[in-house]
């Protein structure tokens, strides 16, 4: 097993005063393989943070099991391989970023020389070099979020668990953090990425799971989830009315993008072939691109969460 994270029937419920079960997470089976960026999305209260806490051993499962690098969740031995950014975190506010990183570095068992080197590096990366001597209580939300990221990266972990890493950040800060995540991904890190910003998840993640009320509703690669079965989109340049009317016979939909280009949607490869033949037969028209038609993650999210449980 080369899985970085694996859960089997992971379940969490609370018993209320009357002995009724409040199920927070129901029979979750997921796995994240090495180097993968795994998106975890779902409405508020879906059970994302609960899952993360189970993975870190902060919560105990009611049923089922979870492994990280083939060790039971919560095992101290693998914690150096994990970097965790909690949602809405808080740190000792009387410390400066340098002191805070030194604290977490020591907890990670690093020596002072290594801590010094890493924290200089990380403060640079997260853009806090200028504030290294400033007490955290003077920090803005976005700055705290950056310190949090630096803290998560201190031991150069192989797995990053990021719970809403861009919440509270301004648009530019969000792009910076997203770029940082992409860079970490390129370095080969495995990432569990929780977010409500679906376009971000779409840009960053290889695979995504949608959970709702503790149930896993969908899981798959971006390609699998977002491409619409059989439908293709063709962009054609240099069209005229006559050409469009001929294409229309094979197409499901045509929308004019600008005076030059039009987007043609077809529902099968055969129809796509026909459209391409028509374009090739016309001296003025050029085929610009052809691709599977995709929907946005947002569209998918809305349709499956509103539609309730799906396979």
């Amino acid at each position, binding site marked *: 097993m080369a899985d970085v994270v694996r859960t089997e029937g992971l379940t969490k419920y609370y018993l209320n005063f009357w002995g009724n079960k409040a199920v927070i997470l129901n029979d979750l089976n997921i796995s994240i393989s090495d180097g993968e960026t795994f998106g975890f999305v779902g409405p508020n209260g879906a059970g994302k943070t609960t899952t993360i*806490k189970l993975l*870190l*051993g*902060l*919560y*105990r499962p009611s049923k089922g099991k979870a492994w990280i690098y083939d060790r039971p969740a919560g095992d*101290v*031995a693998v*914690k*150096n391989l*994990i*970097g*965790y950014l*909690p949602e*809405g*975190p*808080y*740190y*000792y506010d*009387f*410390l400066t970023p340098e002191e805070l990183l*030194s*604290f*977490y570095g*020591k*907890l*990670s*068992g690093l020596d002072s020389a290594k801590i010094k080197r890493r924290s200089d590096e990380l403060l640079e990366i997260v853009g806090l070099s200028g504030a290294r001597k400033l007490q955290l209580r003077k920090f803005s939300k976005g700055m705290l979020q950056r310190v*949090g990221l630096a*803290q*998560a990266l201190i*031991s150069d972990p192989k797995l990053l*668990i990021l719970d809403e890493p861009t919440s509270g950040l301004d648009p530019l800060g969000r792009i910076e953090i997203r770029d940082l995540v992409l860079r970490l991904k390129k370095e080969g890190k495995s990432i569990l990425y929780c977010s409500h910003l679906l376009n971000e998840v779409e840009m960053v993640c290889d695979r995504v799971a949608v959970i709702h009320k503790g149930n896993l509703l969908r899981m798959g690669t971006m390609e699998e989830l977002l491409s619409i079965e059989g439908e293709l989109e063709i962009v054609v340049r240099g069209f005229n009315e006559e050409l469009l009317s001929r294409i229309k016979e094979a197409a499901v939909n045509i929308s004019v993008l600008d005076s030059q280009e039009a987007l043609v949607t077809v529902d099968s490869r055969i129809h796509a072939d026909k459209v391409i033949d028509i374009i090739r037969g016309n001296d003025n028209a050029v085929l610009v691109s052809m691709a599977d038609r995709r929907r946005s993650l947002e569209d998918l999210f809305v349709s499956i969460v509103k539609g309730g449980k799906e396979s």
Partner: protein
Amino acid sequence: MKAIALAMTTFKEAIRKKVLLVLLVFAFIFIGSSLLFTYFSGGEEIRMVKDVGLTGMLVFGLLIATFLGMSLIPTEIEKRIIYTILSKPVRRLEVVVGKYLGAALAVLLMVLLMGLVFMGLVFFKEHSLAPVTVLAIVLTFFELLVVLAMAVTFSTFASTTLSVVLTIFFYILGSSSDSLQYLGGRSDSPLLKAAVKGFGYLIPNFEIFNIRSQVLHNEAVPWVYIFKAIIYGLLLSAALLIVAGMFFQEKEV
């Protein structure tokens, strides 16, 4: 090393608490108030200064230790700092011990400051400082270490209010354990005798740390006694911390 890092931040955090400063100021006022008892005769007055001073150190020390101990772990959970701490390779017992050591350091600082004022006062009145007076302060510190450990332990399974109540309850019980044993020993029922005796082993005996009457009468206390009392305090604190670690291990944070 990890426990030390935790201890250092905990210490820094503790001495920033305003409540501590307030308690310290009140302790100074309390200890210093014995200067007002000038209408007593010479020897009587010195005894008064010592009695009030030791009582002040103990009472305010108890408040400080209880306050620090009960909030040590719960605030960490409440402020969600514990998530990032436990996401690092530290064992939960290490967290308990590290945080305890930091708080113990803060208690030491408080005892030192109160002790300095107290000893200054005694020296001012008596023009000398008997070793037993210093030893009484040392024993008070080790007594407070046990109280601190007790508060930490209770806070790992009880609410803040309940932890305080339990800590004070067990302190009072443990401070009267000798009288309790005496009463039990006089009982006719062997069952009650045994029960009281068994109970005595479960409750920390805080009277061991009390050498107040020797201080008041400037009597020497054997070193062996002091040494034994210190060991007793340390062992008791360690045992309590292990229990705290076990409760904390089971806790969902």
